[in-house]
């Protein structure tokens, strides 16, 4: 094959790939080798103009590539520039990506190839973007969890530690009191019981958070169902709230039925009931009544707590169970009580709603799934714990 047809084939091949070839002359100037692709003129002008138009190509041709061409070690080889971006300012407002390769032939000739790299850019950009988005996303998640961890520490530390001190002092006072002190001893005992409940509650909140932190969407493992007798927990809690009700001249009217085993745990369940009862008592007026009723409906147990107070303010009814949404101007409330109720009940697969009764007053109703196994066998670890 002749040299002429050889180079014609090479030219066609390069043309098909959209590659421009510049031949580097003795004094460092460049000459275009035919064929010249259309984009070369649009973006770079010509072999004489490209330096002014493309700072990157100029930098490469005068810098790294020049050093490569002029380096002492002879022989064939190539040096890639890496991808760069050009924007052709006035005419087309597009982004173009290019890549250049400095080459040295076997005969010592130097050449510079320039080619569009939009496809390569697209591929690499997609890949890199993905990797970066993923690492940033993961980082954000970790940071969010850290914040929760801090909140958890606050609960444990700022609520838990003072409580331990209170408990220790109460126990100390209890020991100092005369066995026959009929007024103070029962009072101290009640205080100790309440403080201990509080401490348990802090522990269970910590557990809810901790479960959240490890990302375990705790909906309960059906193989190891947790169950509790709603009736016995309710009876205990109502008894514990009797004092508070009496102080406000409010009567508690429970309508108990038989045993009712539901999915749940005794301590948080008791705390939920206490929250709802204390709320109802607080909103009742002197001589008022709070009723507590139970029902079974399909696979759920329902507990309904109703008062005869002013009812729930319509403006807060939608966000009643959101954190820090206080129903009105009740001082000394964290605004977390109903939020805690909802979170815990939902964790057990139940639900809770608040509404106003047509005859006046508020109604809070929660439902919990019946604990099938426990109801069938009539046995539960919750019962032993709650009735002790």
């Amino acid at each position, binding site marked *: 094959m002749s040299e002429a047809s050889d180079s014609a084939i090479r030219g066609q091949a390069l043309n098909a790939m959209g590659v421009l070839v510049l031949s580097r002359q003795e004094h460092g100037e460049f000459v275009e080798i035919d064929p010249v692709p259309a984009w070369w003129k649009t973006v770079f002008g010509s072999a004489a103009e490209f330096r002014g138009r493309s*700072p*990157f190509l100029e930098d490469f041709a005068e810098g790294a590539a020049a050093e490569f061409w002029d380096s002492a070690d002879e022989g064939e080889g190539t040096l890639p520039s*890496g991808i*760069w971006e050009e924007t052709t300012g006035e005419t087309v407002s597009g982004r173009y990506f290019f890549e250049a390769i400095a080459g040295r032939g076997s005969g010592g000739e130097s050449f510079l190839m320039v080619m569009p790299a939009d496809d390569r850019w697209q591929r*690499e*950009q997609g890949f890199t973007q993905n*990797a970066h*988005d993923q*690492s940033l996303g993961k980082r954000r998640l970790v940071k969010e969890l850290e914040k929760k961890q801090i909140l958890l520490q606050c609960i444990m530390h700022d609520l838990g530690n003072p409580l331990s001190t209170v408990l220790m002092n109460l126990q100390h006072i209890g020991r100092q009191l005369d066995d026959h002190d009929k007024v103070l001893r029962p009072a101290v005992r009640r205080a100790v019981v309440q403080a201990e409940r509080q401490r348990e509650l802090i522990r269970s909140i910590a557990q809810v958070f901790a479960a959240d932190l490890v990302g375990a969407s705790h909906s309960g493992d059906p193989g190891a169902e947790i169950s509790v007798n709603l009736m016995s927990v309710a009876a205990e809690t109502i008894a514990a709230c009797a004092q508070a009700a009496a102080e406000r001249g409010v009567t508690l009217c429970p309508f108990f039925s038989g045993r009712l085993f539901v999915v749940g745990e005794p301590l948080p369940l008791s705390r939920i009931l206490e929250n709802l009862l204390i709320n109802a008592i607080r909103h009742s007026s002197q001589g008022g009544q709070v009723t507590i009723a139970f029902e079974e409906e399909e696979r759920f147990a329902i507990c309904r707590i109703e008062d005869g107070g002013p009812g729930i303010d319509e403006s807060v009814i939608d966000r009643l169970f959101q954190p820090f949404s206080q129903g009105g101007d009740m001082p000394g409330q964290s605004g977390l009580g109903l939020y805690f109720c909802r979170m815990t009940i939902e964790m057990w697969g139940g639900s809770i709603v608040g509404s106003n009764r047509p005859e006046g007053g508020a109604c809070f109703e929660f439902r919990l799934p019946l604990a099938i196994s426990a109801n069938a066998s009539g046995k539960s670890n919750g019962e032993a714990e709650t009735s002790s």
Partner: protein
Amino acid sequence: MIKKKICLIGAYAVGKTSLVRRFVSGIFSDNYLTTVGVKIDQRTVSVDDREVRLMIWDLAGRDEFQAVQKSYLRGSSAFLYVIDGTRRETLDAVREEMAEIAAEYPRMTSALLVNKHDLVDDWEITEDLLAPFRQAGFLVLSTSAKTGENVAEAFDEMARRMLGDDAGAQEN
């Protein structure tokens, strides 16, 4: 006119491209499009009565897979190291990069930009972490590509310092 090459160096997503866009075009976007390859932007600034054309090289950010391609740094008159104030690890990354680069380019005019100052409540970078850089002669600035805070100031001050050193100004 005097031309000066200035390179932005730093981990991915710290805001290098955003800082250049803010400085050159006065715009900002919350969208993140990671840079692949190199883009050169230009803007002329004046220092006293002299005009300097800054040739600003926005380099792809360093990540787990790739370091900054060192060949791009040749011919520079200044390096702008950028970190993200909300991501402490970007400071560690830039420290490593600096150590490597300083071996080849000692005494280069350099600045450390702690970006995303508009998110200062989420910052993980504290002043005591920055003090060593000030002592080493870096210009250290809190910037925000979002609000524009200290962006022009950073480039202007770099231009001033580059003309001050003026060892390798290329007159064109």
